[in-house]
């Protein structure tokens, strides 16, 4: 039982990172119906920005986090403007392939510029351990979970309560009708990419701190897993991404704890297959009903 709880605790912080990445996938999908395959690479860039701001500029954790988020969000907006916007009215497959191309472009530019060698992340957070009824909780885990929760609460407030958030939901529901309200649809799309990418940037830094190691291809696997998390929760549904991310993290942690860590990547795709067979709309997804 203790072992089980321990794995759940480990899974929670990992899952909250997946949730942060999954949010970007789901928000972008909700607005432009695109699976942004470059999203995992934005997360990787976030980790690298965190690395340079702390190693080279010697900033502390919070300024590094803010810079990572800012640069990632800028990158997301640039990608959208240059690569996706010109294809807005093109067939869906064109933009999907473009997303994969953008992903490769970022990955291999980074390899070219910084070598494929992994880098060791500086220790940004104190390395305490809490012992509670035989369970070990590290300060890092608490920190990651805490930051992720704060960011998600912030996002929830933004989307539900602010004018920009309402505009976002309107665009995601009906783009033309939203434009008829005077909403600048292009700005809303950019804003969505900015927010989603900022969350991925934050996730990148948090993972760098947690695993202590980053490299230019680090975004591929977490990117795919976060995509599965978004589908699991119901693609396009924000709370779904949060739930899906947590489930993915915990499942992965349990599998590597009780079976073998060899299967930790397989579990993500097993979940994907099962959800697509059993409930393709995702856990929180509803079949959309149209009223005449």
């Amino acid at each position, binding site marked *: 039982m203790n072992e089980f709880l321990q794995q759940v605790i480990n899974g929670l912080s990992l899952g909250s990172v997946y949730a942060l990445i999954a949010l970007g996938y789901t928000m972008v999908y909700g607005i432009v119906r695109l699976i942004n395959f470059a999203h995992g690479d934005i997360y990787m860039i976030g980790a690298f920005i965190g690395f340079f701001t702390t190693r080279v500029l010697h900033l502390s954790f919070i300024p590094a986090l803010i810079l990572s988020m800012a640069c990632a969000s800028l990158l997301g907006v640039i990608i959208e403007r240059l690569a996706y916007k010109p294809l807005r009215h093109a067939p869906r497959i064109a933009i999907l392939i473009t997303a994969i191309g953008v992903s490769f472009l970022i990955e291999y530019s980074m390899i070219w510029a910084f070598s494929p060698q992994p880098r060791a992340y500086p220790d940004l957070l104190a390395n305490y351990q809490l012992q509670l009824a035989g369970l070990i909780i590290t300060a890092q885990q608490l920190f990651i979970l805490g930051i992720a929760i704060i960011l998600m609460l912030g996002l929830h407030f933004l989307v539900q309560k602010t004018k920009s958030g309402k505009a976002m939901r309107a665009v995601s529901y009906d783009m033309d009708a*939203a434009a008829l309200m005077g909403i600048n649809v292009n700005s809303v799309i950019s804003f969505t990419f900015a927010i989603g990418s900022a969350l991925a940037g934050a996730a990148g830094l948090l993972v760098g701190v947690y695993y202590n190691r980053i490299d230019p291809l680090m975004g591929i696997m977490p990117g795919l897993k976060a995509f599965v998390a978004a589908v699991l929760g119901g693609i396009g549904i924000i709370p779904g991404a949060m739930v899906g991310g947590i489930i993915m993290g915990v499942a992965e942690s349990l599998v590597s704890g009780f079976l073998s860590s060899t299967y930790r990547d397989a579990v993500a795709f097993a979940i994907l297959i099962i959800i697509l067979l059993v409930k393709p709309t995702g856990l929180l997804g509803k079949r959309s009903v149209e009223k005449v």
Partner: protein
Amino acid sequence: MLQIEGLNVYYGGIHALKDLSLEVEQGEIVSLIGANGAGKSTTLNTISGLVRAKNGKILFKGQSITSMPVHDVVKAGIVQVPEGRRVFANLTVRDNLELGAYLRRDKAAVAADMRKVFRLFPRLEERQSQLAGTLSGGEQQMLAIGRGLMAAPQLLLLDEPSMGLAPMLVREIFRIIQEINKMGATILLVEQNAHMALAIAHRAYVLETGRVVLSGPAKQVLEMDEVKKAYLGG
């Protein structure tokens, strides 16, 4: 107020609007009638900027809006209530109305307009915190019109406001359209219900396959034999 000159619109190979010209004067209700596919909605969508004209001019208060982005057309004062209501079903009634006022910064005037909308449509006030998707068809139409009014339009484009509504509700909606007009908004109304549309309009245009085939004061159009035969059932 609004002048359209020689407008040509194509959907792929289909010539949807052919040399269309029409005019709307300040304070008028102008009805655009015609059969399905005559180009009525296309006309409104081209004015709003959702559809681009191949050539021709659209002037609003003397200024060209032909290639303006949709949100700038709204800013200029032309607001469309689209066909099929298109309310944001995932948002509350109140949020829908607030989005109608998206471009406005004058909070006090927006609040006053909200009260005005609630006076016109008391049902919306009762249901303001309900999701728009849970409203009935008639209520959604009221919401769509109310949402349009929240933008404080100078020119209101109404696309088939009576579609799918019970006859009693249709009369109610048309009464409200007249009231909105009396409150100062100019109205360009697209309708299949030619009877009602001609009854409340000052002037009317009849479209057939993308072309204006008849126009004039609504009362005269109502009396024309070809209109009676084609659109008024006898």
